[in-house]
């Protein structure tokens, strides 16, 4: 489902990021742990088709991601990769439901997942709400719903628990795992948060032990 091989990337040639090869099947889960500055987010950007590596290849569902150009890559990303950020980053001009519809629109999909997803994540009542009225936890769930709404092959989460308390952090990770299993997607969580360790056994540590 997802293969990353021989990836090389650096902003400064003295300070190369060591990026391990990754090979995941549908439904697999992977935790990438590293300190701040170890290049966690860079790896995630490369896997998510947001940052082109200097060399190496990322394949998702058999398609070489960086072999695609311009609009093709954008569409592919929208359809196949769901990204969850540390902060929810929901578009505040739109309400909850419209945020999900927009994800559908940009991916060129028309999914019937919007209502079931919102129900599963317990925010169906808030579907018409202004984004600014949501609590932190609700907002994070909206961003998870948005990442899942196109039924992606790969879910990438960048520090999804960083700003949450213990209970919510645990909930969010469980939620991500549940949804990944349910929609049969590969899940990669990148974090420095030790609390996540217990949930996912398949782990890679980068930038030395923390």
């Amino acid at each position: 489902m997802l293969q990353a091989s021989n990836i090389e990337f650096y902003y400064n040639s003295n300070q190369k990021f060591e990026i391990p090869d990754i090979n995941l099947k549908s439904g697999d889960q992977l935790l990438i742990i590293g300190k701040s500055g170890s290049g966690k987010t860079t790896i995630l950007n490369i896997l998510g088709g947001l940052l082109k590596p200097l060399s190496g290849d990322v394949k998702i569902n058999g398609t070489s991601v960086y072999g695609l150009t311009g609009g093709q890559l954008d569409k592919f990303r929208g359809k196949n990769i769901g990204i969850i950020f540390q902060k929810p980053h929901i578009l505040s001009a739109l309400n909850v439901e419209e945020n999900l519809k927009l994800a559908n629109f940009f991916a060129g999909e028309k999914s019937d997942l919007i209502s079931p997803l919102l129900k599963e994540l317990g925010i169906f009542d808030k579907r018409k709400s202004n984004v600014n009225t949501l609590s932190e936890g609700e907002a994070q769930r909206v961003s998870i719903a948005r990442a899942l709404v196109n039924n992606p092959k790969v879910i990438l989460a960048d520090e999804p628990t960083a700003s949450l308390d213990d209970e919510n952090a645990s909930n969010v990770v469980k939620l991500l795992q549940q949804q990944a299993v349910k929609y049969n997607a590969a899940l990669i969580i990148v974090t420095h948060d030790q609390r996540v360790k217990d949930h996912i056994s398949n782990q890679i540590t980068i930038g030395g032990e923390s």
Partner: protein
Amino acid sequence: MNMLRLSWKYLIAKPLNTGLNILLLALGLAIITVLILIQDQFENKMTKDAEGIDLVVGAKGSPLQLILSSVYHIDFPTGNIDMADAIALSKNRLVKNIIPLGMGDNYQGYRIVGTNHDYLDIYNAEMVSGVIWDKPFDVVLGNETAAKLGLGVGDTFIGSHGIGSSSHEHDEHPYKVTGILTPMGNVLDKLILTSIESVWYTHDEGHDHEKFETPVAKTGFPETDEDREVTSLLVQYRNPIAAVQLPRFVNSKSALQAASPSFEISRLFELLGVGVKLIQGLAVVIIIIAGLGIFIALFNSLKERKYDLAVMRTLGASNGQLFLHIVLEGVILTFIGAIVGILIGHLFLAVLVMQNEQGAISGLTAMVFLVEELWILVYAVIVGIIASLIPAWNAYQTDIAKQLTKA
């Protein structure tokens, strides 16, 4: 969800900013709309009213005043001329037809104009009811005059001296309405037409009742052995040479003055043109400021929205779509601004016309939409595109990875 809706959502997320920009643009465009409407209708009306009248002859004075008073019935007449001079002129071989006008009275602000039946023929006037006048003190009302005064065939009224406001009333001889004209869409609509004789007899001291029963002249001049005057003459040329020779011939006579409607009206428009240009310039400045306002609003909002744009990219938006997203915001703003502006322009003109029921602009209507107004829409949208180009280009270049890592 589509691009148009997305841009719209972002606009209404900031209603005050959006409203201000729309209003400013609308104001500039409203001014231009009013100018276009007035100019077009004014010129149309002016040309239509002067059709069939080649030359106006009257007492010495301002030629423009002579035209305005005798053709458009808006200014005061320059004075009266001797009928003997008028008859002498009518015998000139260059004159095809000559129509005398006698003015000086009004009824509740509507001018009473003494003339003959030829005057109605110039405009191909038809009656909606009744017949054309036959005896002294018979009058025919313009359609609007009849409607506003609430007079019908058979009704009588008493005229008063003067042209605009009434001074003393001629209480001895009531006028009798014998007919009403169809709506003409020209100067006739607001007149009260009668024979030259009516105008004379109103001002006479004595009462000769036999005279009042004699049919009036239907064409040419009334026959009379008294010294009579008329106010002005409308002249039709017999041939093109007349246009060169007749005005010079008339003006060389000390008592008379000739003025050409088409010449005087183009002179009038030239004079007004300076003012129109000035207002136009003002409108253009307002539109440019509105464009700048839109540019600044988009540019500023873009700083806050860099992250939103990057998120849209991760959701599958191409950089072309982001470009379109920003340009659409500018276009929606200016499109709405143009529509609002055109509506305000029409509304403004409607109010203006309502408040000047008998003035020079009373014949205008706000209910006409011109092709030029479509051009206003096009220009406005072009302003929107130009104002949003730089912000849109910035959006196009959003570096997703860098933008997302920054936060």
